């Protein structure tokens, strides 16, 4: 065993799986925060989506119905967040806290009422889960040393939502930096008054951003319950919404950097599952608790500005009041 076992294909494979929900949630937060709406309710939206996707997939037997239900639930919470922070100009952070608790409580309450299994859904069977997809030519290319193996074992064999999440990275970049909508969305997060003066609806743009955030969180939650695992269990997001938030700061609100940040945090989660590998690579034990805390510590360091300052969108967190 050596240092290179840290980059074992199985560890990297797990990294991709664990990074996917982080990436989707991180991009979700990116849309919202770029439009000037802070969202610490990513966790709650993912949790709600995880429950409703698992519940509907279990009842209908179709994972696609589950995905739609998950997105619907997440969108509903997004609407609530938009209502509180855009329409009624309330405190966006407090609204996010409320949404997290609402999701944490309601998912268990409804799960208990629907399934009577102690706040969880029944285990999902084939068809109610996202299956792994084998990409074409895996068999032929798999024989090639190194690159072929990477293709067959690392790139191929994930559920469709993993590829969707990866596709969302250039997608987000294109929308934000190459379309008119994206330009306006970023402008509304920096200087809403200017956007308003140009005759574009600040409220409309912000609601659109919050809705996109809801859809992406919905997919993230659905992936957790129907892709990564087979069913919903209480509090299954386990802080992933906050790690995504940390990744967003780490990435300084940029899509490609979000990918790298979530892959890094996904890697930390993956390696924490394999203490044997760490020990053989470094020759000493690294505390699991340190690995758990590392994303948060790194984020604080970034926030402190020691490794390049993270500057959030300027109008973030402030409700827009039209001057009369």
């Amino acid at each position, binding site marked *: 065993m050596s240092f290179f076992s840290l980059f074992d294909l199985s560890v990297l494979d797990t990294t991709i799986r664990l990074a996917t929900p982080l990436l989707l949630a991180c991009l979700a937060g990116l849309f919202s925060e770029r439009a000037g709406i802070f969202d610490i309710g990513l966790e709650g939206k993912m949790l709600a989506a995880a429950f409703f996707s698992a519940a509907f997939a279990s009842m209908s037997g179709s994972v696609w119905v589950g995905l739609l239900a998950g997105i619907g639930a997440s969108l509903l919470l997004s609407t609530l967040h938009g209502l509180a922070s855009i329409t009624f100009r309330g405190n966006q952070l407090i609204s996010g806290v409320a949404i997290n*608790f609402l999701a944490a409580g309601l998912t268990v309450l409804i799960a208990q009422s629907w399934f009577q299994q102690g706040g969880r859904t029944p285990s999902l069977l084939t068809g109610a889960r996202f299956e792994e997809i084998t990409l074409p030519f895996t068999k032929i290319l798999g024989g090639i040393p190194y690159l072929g193996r990477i293709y067959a074992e690392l790139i191929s064999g994930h559920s469709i939502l993993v590829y969707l999440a990866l596709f969302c990275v250039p997608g987000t970049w294109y929308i934000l930096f190459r379309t008119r909508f994206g330009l306006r969305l970023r402008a509304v997060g920096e200087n809403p008054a200017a956007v308003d003066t140009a005759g574009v609806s600040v409220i409309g743009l912000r609601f659109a951003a919050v809705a996109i955030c809801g859809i992406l969180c919905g997919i993230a939650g659905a992936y957790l319950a129907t892709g990564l695992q087979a069913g919903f269990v209480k509090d299954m997001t386990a802080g992933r919404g906050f790690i995504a938030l940390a990744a967003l700061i780490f990435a300084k609100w940029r899509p490609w950097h979000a990918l790298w940040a979530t892959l890094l945090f996904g890697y930390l989660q993956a390696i924490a599952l394999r203490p044997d590998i760490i020990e053989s690579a470094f020759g000493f034990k690294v505390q699991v608790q340190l690995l758990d805390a590392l994303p*948060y510590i790194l984020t604080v360091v970034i926030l402190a500005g020691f490794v390049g300052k993270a500057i959030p969108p300027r109008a973030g967190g402030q409700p827009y009041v039209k001057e009369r």
Partner: protein
Amino acid sequence: MDVMPKWAEVVLIPFISLALAAILSVIVILAIGEDPIAAVKLMVSGSLGSTYGWGYTLYYATNFMFTGLAVAVAFHAGLFNIGGEGQAMLGGLGVALVCLLVPWPHWTLALFAAAVGAALFGAAWATIPAYLQAKRGSHIVITTIMFNFIAAALLNYILVNVLRPKGSMDPATERFSETVHLPSLHDLLAPFGINFSKAAPANVSLIIAVIACILVWLLIWRTALGLEIRSYGKSGRAARYAGIGSLRITMIAMLISGGLAGMMAINNVMGEAERLVLNAVEGAGFIGIAVALMGRSHPFGIFLAAILFGFLYQGGAELALWTKIPRELIVVIQALVILFTGALDNMVRMPLEHIFLAIQRSRSAKITKPVD
């Protein structure tokens, strides 16, 4: 913007917000197929119907008074301290170290030292977020969230690797010695001829919490520092113009806030568990947000809100015990309270302001009539 009379501000708006939260909670109970009237009856009898129930209600309320005050002091300085959970965890560590390392001759001395230890550790955990906010402009909400997770990992490490007694599998410290045992309400009330339940965990910390409420009231409304904190919270720019240093106020407010959150540990760690366990705080740091919002950041309001949440917590436990309603109902109610008293405050306020404005107009119209 003094459109509304003071009574509407202090009583009417919180009442309407709470009523909305209560109505939605009833709808939730109905939706999961349970009887809300029976549920409320059970909650009341379970938490207020006996001294045993009261003992638990007041025990929870003690926790929430500390964390509620913590959130409120930061609110007054315009800061949102969401890190009460982590600060209370560290406070627990402070209490455990004080109780385990020193052979205390009497509980009074131990309580004093433990309170100081808890406050110091809690305040220390708030120092870095406060400093980064004041000096580097890093958003305190994000840093305190991060520090909650770091605190959980740190405590996990310390309990598993350092403070766990040899041979024990439980990630917890050993039991504190008998001499640091805090008197419960049973012990305190017995000399007055009141037979309070022996099994309930409410203890002398309740009195400390009430004293803390009074001290925070004095600090915020009766001292120069309190005035500075409030003016900084109302407008940082105006305060700076008046010579109030933002670094100083941010640090002081956050240290007091962290200290108060940490002091919760004298109740749950020293008063109840009598050892430090992994999940000692049980979300009380977050409930402090709901309590502070509901109490409008005023110590008296926080006192009442803490007792209400204590009632909800104990009532929720009874519900989980006797009915099919899970304990998470309380989390939902807590979320609704935060939503309506915090985030959707304007939803209640805007229509009321319109009504009061209309009343004022019609009144002034009546007054001006005789003139012409």
